[in-house]
């Protein structure tokens, strides 16, 4: 805790951001390191609303899959529709006048979807199945959700706008698929991910 506080203060001092600044600074060009120690492997994505993941996932402790509902059900994890945001935020009066929330309600009043941009984008010839990874590690092995999602997405709960911090390349996928993962906490049997071309390549 002290560490965290000190670190935050250090960043605030070094980079001139306001105290209590957002924990994740998006960082510079691809390949550089963000001030808080992430490898910024993906490009900086400018979202229509700077969605604060840290506020929802870390401070409020909301499960990732409360909004990304597809992750446990299918291939894509789904970016939530605007009514998902409104469903909560129409009842949260305390933040109603914050600029981002105002922007959110502007979209809502205009009956427009928010044009979110994709951050973790795989090539078109790759199929990645969120369902299998979530079912295996979250539901079957009861690992914490932030850890399970973090295998591929990094520590999103400490980010504001998500940025790709993992390689998401084939060798990187394979490096995990070749590891022996325990099948469950009570079972010492291990298995590893599939290694055939057609499992991921269309």
């Amino acid at each position: 805790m002290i560490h965290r506080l000190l670190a935050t203060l250090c960043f605030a001092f070094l980079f001139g951001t306001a105290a209590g600044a957002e924990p994740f600074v998006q960082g510079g060009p691809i390949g550089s390191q963000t001030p808080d120690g992430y490898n910024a492997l993906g490009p900086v994505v400018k979202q229509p609303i700077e969605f604060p993941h840290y506020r929802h996932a870390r401070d409020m402790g909301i499960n990732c899959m409360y909004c990304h509902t597809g992750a446990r059900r299918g291939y894509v994890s789904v970016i939530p529709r605007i009514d998902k945001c409104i469903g909560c935020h129409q009842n949260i009066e305390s933040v109603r006048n914050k600029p981002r929330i105002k922007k959110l309600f502007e979209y809502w009043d205009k009956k427009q979807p928010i044009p979110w941009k994709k951050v973790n984008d795989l090539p078109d010839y790759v199929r990645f199945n969120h369902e299998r990874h979530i079912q295996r590690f979250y539901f079957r092995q009861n690992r914490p959700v932030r850890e399970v999602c973090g295998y591929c997405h990094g520590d999103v709960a400490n980010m504001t706008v998500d940025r790709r911090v993992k390689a998401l390349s084939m060798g990187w996928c394979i490096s995990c698929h070749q590891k022996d993962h325990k099948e469950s906490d009570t079972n010492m049997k291990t298995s590893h991910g599939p290694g055939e071309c057609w499992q991921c390549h269309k």
Partner: protein
Amino acid sequence: MSITNLLNNWSFYRQKRPYQGQYDLNRQYSEYKWAMALDLDICTGCNACTTACYAENNLPVVGKKRFNQGHVMHWIRIERYWDENMGEFPEQGASFLPMMCQQCEEAPCETVCPVGATSHTNDGLNSQNYHRCVGSRYCSVNCPYKVRYFNFWNYPSTAWPAPLPDQLNPDVTVRTKGIMEKCTFCVQRLNEAKSRARTEYRLVRDGEVVPACVQACPTSAITFGNIVDPKSKVAMMWKNQQVDLYKDMQEKDNSVRGYRILEDLRPFPSVMYLERVRDMEA
């Protein structure tokens, strides 16, 4: 493997499949081995399977000129065989034989690929990885069934004018020039069914997933399924026809119709055909 070892164990190595150790003759597929049974007596040669395959797998229509040049891209084709000795029953017409990749257990194409773009999966499929393929066409030369098709042209630029790309199947890559391609048993459907089944802690049920050709067949001439499951329809058909996946010469009586094409070349194909019954005395 020394020469003496080879000579001493000649019969063993003669029988050995190329992937011994990884895929040996006595290998038991633990979960899935996809296979097909195709009844030529029921097949009417209507080409619905071909059409369905074009729609499902983003196959380009190449046009008459390129068809005549042999550049056609049909993963499943209806071969027609005309009886030369028509004799007194000329109305018998042609015999139809839908021919697609036979997903051989000992596939000749796999051994010759210089870059390993085609390999065997754990489900017994003969996979083709478009992104590794360099277009040597060696596999097509070595395929006894001639079911591998090469993209001689950049078909995506011509085959689907303006609104048509919207109908492409997003689960299948649109292949570009210089790529070899072939029937996949609709692997995108199989993968989806498999992951759905795994989530529910079970195996894929019989009939839960079928390729597009099987789905489209109006007479249900094609049966598709998991041959590991002895109760699946396709496994029972194979058993009833006394066709064994791992035998190159089937020992069976003459009353059954099942056979596999070019079995004596020992590719151990996964597709069994059922001979057409002809009433020669009518």
